[in-house]
C-alpha cells in the first residue's frame, strides 16, 4: 500500500454501525435505569415562595423528588465558573437546583426520579411551585441602561464583565480620516439544536466508591475531573464516556450543566442507575443559546475606502448566568478585523445578564458576529464612497508578505492574536471567478430594469483555530497488527474515527479500517480538553501524529533487533515491516508487538514465530527488555500548540427577492475556504456544507422569539424553523491550501468555517438586492415586506 491516506476521501470507519442502527447514543444505554424529569421555572424571573411536591409523592413508580434542600455540601453551592477572567467582575452561575430566585424560564427547581420517563413527567406535572414574579429584563439595550430592571435581584445593574483594548491610536486616526461613519448592528439569539439533545446516564457504585457516566458531552475529561472533585472521589474511579453523539455544535461543551451534577447525585443517593434524556422542549429552555450582540461602530476611512481606524462598542447577551465567562465577546473582539489591515482599532464590550437562557459558544462562537459587523462595514463604506465592495476589500487586505501578522488584540487563549499564514487576495480571486462576479453584476443590472431585485453579497472571514492547551493520543499495536488509538476528546459526527486513523495509517503502514479510534472515553485516555473551537484536527491530529511517530520508532527498534538491521533500513507497508531492498526480510507489525513484550506464551503460528524472533532480538542486546524500553508498542503523546492557527475563507451569495411573497431566494451560494492541509476532503466538505446550512438557517430562518416576559414563543420545531433540504440551495465549494507553518501536519481547523460568514453574506446580499441596509439579523420575508412596503 503505497497510497498516502492523508488527503484521501476515505470512507468512514464509523459508518457501518451508524447506518445499521448499531450506533450507541446515551439513551440507548441502561434501559432499566430510573429516569429523571425536572420541574423548570415557568417564569423568567421570580422568587420561589413555595414548592408543593405532595402530588408527586402519591404517584406509583416515583423513586424520589428533590429540591435544593436535599443537596448538601458542594452540591448546594453554585455550579463552577468554568472560565473566569480578569474582566469578568460579577460572575454568576446557577445552583444545580434553584435556591430561592430563578432567573430564566427553564431554570431547574425540582428533580423527579421515577421508574420511567412517563411517570417522571406525571410527577413533575403534579408539583406546584408558587412564585413571586420579579421584573424581567430581556432586551440588551434596555438591560445596560441605568435604572433597568435587574436580571438578578442582588445586583445593582446587569453588567457582569467589561473588557477594552486598543491597538494604535484610534482617536487621532479617526480625527485625521477623510470620512467617518457611525453605524449600529444587531444580531439576535440563536441555538445549536443538534438532532440529539443532551443526555446522561449515571451508574454510581457505592460499594466501589466509583462513578461511571455516559454523557453526550463534548468535553468528557472536564466532566470527569469536575465530578471527581465534587464527589470527593479518586479520579481513577470516575469515568465519563461520551458515546456516539448526535451533534453538539458547542451546545454540549459546557461543564457543568445542572443535570450533569444532579443525575450522578441521584444515582448515588438512590443506589441505582439513573438516566436523563433531554426532550426537545427542554433543549429550548435548558440548553445554552448564543449569538445576541449589539454593536455601535465607528469607522474612519481615506478617500479610497481604506480603513484607517475602527472602533466597536458592543453588548453581549450572557443570559441569566455566565459560567462560560467572556469567551464569546472576547472572540468577537479578537476576530473582528478579519483579513484587513486596520492599524488603529479599539473595542469595548460589556457582558450583560438578561432573564433568558444562559449563553455559551455555538458553532462560530463570537466569530459570526465579528464577520457580520466587519463585512457590513466594508459594504457600507463602499456604498458611501461609491466603490465596488470587492475593490474596498482588495484595498484593505493584509498582504501575503505580511505574515506572521499581529492583529494587536488578545486572543481567546490569552495570548496575542497573530495570524500565522494566509493568502487573502488569492482566495478572493478564486471566489470571484467561481462566482462570475462581473457576469452577475451585469445580470443584476438587467434584472433591475425588469423591476426584479437581485443582490450579491460577500462575507470574508479569518478564523482562529487549533488552540490549546493540548490534546493527547494513547496508541497501541495489538498482536493481530491492528492499532488502537484513544483520544481524550469526543466526536459528534466529525469523523474522528477515520481522519485520525488516516494519519496513523501513513505512519505505520496499516489499513485505515484496521485502526480503531476511541474518542472521549476517559477510561482509555484520561487527559484531554474537548471538541470545540475547530481544534480537534489540529491539536488532536498532531498528537496522533506524534504518537504514531513514537510507535513507529519503537516498532522499528524491535524489528531492527529481530532482523539484525539498522532501524533506518526498514519500510512500513501493508502491516509489514521489511528491509529496504530485501522484502522477504520482514516481520509483521503484530509480530513486532508480540516481540516487544517478551512473555512466555505462543498462541498460534505467528506468535510462535515471534517468540523465536524475540530470542534473536535478545541476542542483539544485553537483556530481554532493553534499558529504556517498555513492553509492548505503546505510546501516549501530547501536542500543545504555541498559538492558534488561522484558517480563512470567503462566501458569496446571489439572492433574489420574490416580488409577491418577499421571500429571499438564494440563487447561488459559493464557498471558498482554506484550512491548510486537508486530511480527508470528503469530511472537510461535509463540515463546510453542514456549517453553511446552519449559517443560512441562522440568517433567514432560526429566530428565537422571546417576548418581553422572557418566554420563548416558538419553543418547538414547529415554529423554530430549522431548514429542510428544500430551504438550502446547492452550495459550490472551492478551496485553496495555505499550510500552517506552526504544526508538523500543516493543518488548520475547519469545523466552524461553514457557519461563520453566513449572516454577513446574506445580510450583504439582501442589502444589495433591496438597496436598503440590513443591519439587524436574522432577516425574514416579513422584514423585507416592512422595508418594501413600509409595513402597510
Amino acid at each position, binding site marked *: 500500500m503505497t497510497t498516502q491516506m492523508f488527503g484521501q476521501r476515505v*470512507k*468512514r470507519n*464509523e*459508518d*457501518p454501525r*451508524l*447506518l*445499521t*442502527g*448499531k*450506533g*450507541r*447514543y446515551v*439513551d*440507548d444505554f441502561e*434501559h432499566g435505569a430510573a429516569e429523571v424529569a425536572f420541574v423548570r421555572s415557568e417564569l423568567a424571573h421570580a422568587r420561589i415562595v413555595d414548592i408543593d411536591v405532595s402530588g408527586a409523592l402519591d404517584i*406509583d413508580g416515583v423513586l424520589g423528588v428533590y429540591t435544593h434542600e436535599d443537596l448538601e455540601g458542594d452540591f448546594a453551592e453554585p455550579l463552577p465558573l468554568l472560565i473566569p477572567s480578569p474582566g469578568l467582575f460579577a460572575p454568576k452561575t446557577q445552583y444545580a437546583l434553584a435556591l430561592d430566585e430563578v432567573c430564566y424560564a427553564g431554570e431547574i427547581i425540582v428533580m423527579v426520579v421515577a421508574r420511567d420517563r*412517563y411517570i417522571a413527567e406525571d410527577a413533575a406535572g403534579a408539583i406546584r411551585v408558587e412564585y413571586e414574579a420579579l421584573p424581567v429584563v430581556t432586551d440588551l439595550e434596555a438591560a445596560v441602561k441605568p435604572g433597568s430592571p435587574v436580571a438578578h435581584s442582588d445586583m445593582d445593574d446587569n453588567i457582569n464583565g467589561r473588557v477594552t483594548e486598543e491597538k494604535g491610536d484610534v482617536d487621532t486616526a479617526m480625527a485625521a480620516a477623510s470620512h467617518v461613519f457611525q453605524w449600529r448592528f444587531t444580531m439576535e439569539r440563536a441555538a445549536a*439544536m*443538534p*438532532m*440529539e*439533545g443532551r443526555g446522561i446516564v449515571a451508574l454510581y457504585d457505592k460499594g466501589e466508591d466509583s462513578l461511571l457516566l455516559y454523557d453526550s458531552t463534548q468535553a468528557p475529561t472536564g466532566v470527569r475531573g469536575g465530578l471527581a472533585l465534587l464527589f470527593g472521589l479518586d479520579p481513577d474511579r470516575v469515568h465519563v464516556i461520551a458515546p*456516539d*453523539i*448526535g*451533534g453538539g*455544535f458547542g451546545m454540549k461543551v459546557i461543564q457543568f450543566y445542572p443535570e450533569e451534577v444532579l443525575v450522578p447525585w441521584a444515582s448515588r443517593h438512590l443506589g441505582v442507575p439513573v438516566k436523563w*434524556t433531554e*426532550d*426537545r422542549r427542554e433543549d429550548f429552555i435548558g440548553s445554552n443559546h448564543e449569538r445576541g450582540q449589539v454593536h455601535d461602530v465607528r469607522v474612519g476611512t481615506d478617500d479610497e475606502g481604506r480603513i484607517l481606524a475602527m472602533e466597536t462598542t458592543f453588548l453581549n447577551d450572557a443570559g441569566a448566568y455566565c459560567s462560560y465567562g467572556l469567551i464569546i465577546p472576547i472572540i468577537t473582539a479578537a476576530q473582528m478585523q478579519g483579513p484587513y489591515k486596520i492599524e488603529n482599532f479599539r473595542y469595548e464590550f460589556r457582558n450583560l445578564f438578561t432573564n433568558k437562557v444562559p449563553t455559551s459558544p455555538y458553532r462560530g462562537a463570537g466569530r459570526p458576529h465579528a464577520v457580520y459587523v466587519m463585512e457590513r462595514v466594508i459594504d457600507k463604506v463602499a456604498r458611501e464612497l461609491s466603490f465596488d465592495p470587492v475593490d474596498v476589500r482588495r484595498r484593505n487586505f493584509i498582504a501575503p508578505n505580511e505574515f506572521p501578522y499581529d492583529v494587536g488584540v488578545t486572543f481567546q487563549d490569552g495570548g496575542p492574536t497573530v495570524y500565522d499564514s494566509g493568502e487573502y487576495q488569492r482566495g478572493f480571486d478564486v471566489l470571484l471567478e467561481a462566482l462570475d462576479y462581473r457576469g452577475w453584476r451585469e445580470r443584476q443590472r438587467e434584472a433591475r430594469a425588469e423591476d426584479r431585485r437581485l443582490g450579491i453579497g460577500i462575507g470574508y472571514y479569518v478564523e482562529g483555530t487549533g488552540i490549546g492547551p493540548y490534546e493527547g493520543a494513547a496508541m497501541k499495536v495489538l498482536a493481530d497488527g491492528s492499532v488502537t488509538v484513544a483520544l481524550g476528546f469526543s466526536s*459528534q*459526527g*466529525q*469523523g474522528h474515527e477515520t481522519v485520525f486513523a488516516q494519519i496513523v495509517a501513513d505512519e505505520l503502514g496499516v489499513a485505515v479500517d484496521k485502526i480503531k479510534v476511541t474518542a472521549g472515553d476517559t477510561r482509555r485516555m484520561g487527559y484531554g480538553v474537548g471538541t470545540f473551537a475547530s481544534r480537534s484536527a489540529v491539536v488532536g491530529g498532531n498528537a496522533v501524529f506524534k504518537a504514531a511517530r513514537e510507535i513507529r520508532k519503537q516498532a522499528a527498534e524491535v524489528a531492527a533487533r529481530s532482523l539484525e538491521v539498522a532501524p533506518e533500513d526498514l519500510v512500513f507497508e501493508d502491516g509489514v515491516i521489511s528491509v529496504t531492498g530485501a522484502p522477504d526480510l520482514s516481520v509483521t507489525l503484530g509480530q513486532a508487538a508480540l516481540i516487544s513484550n517478551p512473555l512466555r506464551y505462543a498462541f498460534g503460528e505467528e506468535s510462535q514465530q515471534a517468540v523465536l524472533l524475540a530470542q534473536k532480538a535478545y541476542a542483539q542486546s544485553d537483556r530481554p527488555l532493553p534499558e529504556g524500553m517498555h513492553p509492548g508498542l505503546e505510546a501516549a503523546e501530547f501536542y500543545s500548540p504555541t498559538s492558534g492557527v488561522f484558517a480563512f475563507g470567503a462566501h458569496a451569495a446571489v439572492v433574489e427577492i420574490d416580488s409577491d411573497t418577499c421571500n429571499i431566494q438564494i440563487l447561488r451560494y459559493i464557498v471558498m475556504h482554506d484550512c491548510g492541509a486537508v486530511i480527508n476532503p*470528503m*469530511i472537510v*466538505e*461535509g463540515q463546510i*456544507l*453542514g*456549517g*453553511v*446550512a*446552519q449559517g443560512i438557517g441562522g440568517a433567514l430562518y432560526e429566530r428565537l422569539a422571546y417576548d418581553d416576559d422572557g418566554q420563548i414563543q416558538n419553543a*418547538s*420545531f*414547529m415554529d423554530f424553523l*430549522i431548514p*429542510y*433540504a*428544500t430551504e*438550502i440551495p*446547492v*452550495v459550490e465549494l472551492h478551496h485553496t491550501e495555505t499550510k500552517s507553518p506552526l504544526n508538523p501536519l500543516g493543518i488548520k481547523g475547519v469545523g466552524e468555517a*461553514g457557519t461563520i460568514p453566513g449572516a454577513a453574506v446574506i445580510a450583504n446580499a439582501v442589502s444589495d438586492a433591496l438597496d436598503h441596509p440590513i443591519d439587524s439579523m436574522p432577516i425574514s420575508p416579513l422584514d423585507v415586506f416592512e422595508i418594501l412596503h413600509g409595513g402597510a
Partner: protein
Amino acid sequence: MAVAPGDSTRIELTVNGVAHQVDVEARWLLSDVLRHEIGLTGTHVGCEHGVCGCCTVLIEGQPARSCLTLAVQVDGAEVTTVEGLAEPNGDLHPLQESFMTHHGLQCGYCTPGFLMSALPIYEQAANMSDEALRKAISGQLCRCTGYAGILDAIRGAAAIEDARTRGDDV
C-alpha cells in the same frame, strides 16, 4: 377493549419480519416501545412532535413517524426499522452503501429516519430534478450535513443496486 391508565395490554408487533408480543401501556409511543421494550435502538427520537423525522420507520410498508404513533394503535401491524435494511449476512442495502460512499451522514442521528423515508423514492431519485428530490426528503431534518451528501447518497443508491444485480463488485 379498554385499558386503564397504568395497566398494560399485550400487543403483537412484527418488526423486521419477527413477531414480538409486548406488554405495553396504552400511552407508550411506538418509538419508545421499539427502543426500550423490543431493544431496537436504531430508531431515534429528536423532537416528539413529528417535525424532525428522526423517528421515521415503515408501518405497513410506508414511512411514518413512530413518535406520533401509540404502540397500541399499530397492534398487529408490520413495522420495519433501520435494523431490517441490511441483509441477514450483513450486506448493506444499496441505500446504506450509498450513504457511506457519498458521506451522507456525520453524527448518524437523523440517518435511520432518512434511510427509511428514502426507501420509497430511491429507485426514481436519479431521474428527479434537484428541486423534486429535495421536496421528497423535506420533512426530515439534518443538522450536520447540509443535505448535500444525503441527496447524493439517495441519487446514487439505484446505481449501486443495478451494479449488484449485474454482478459488479460494489
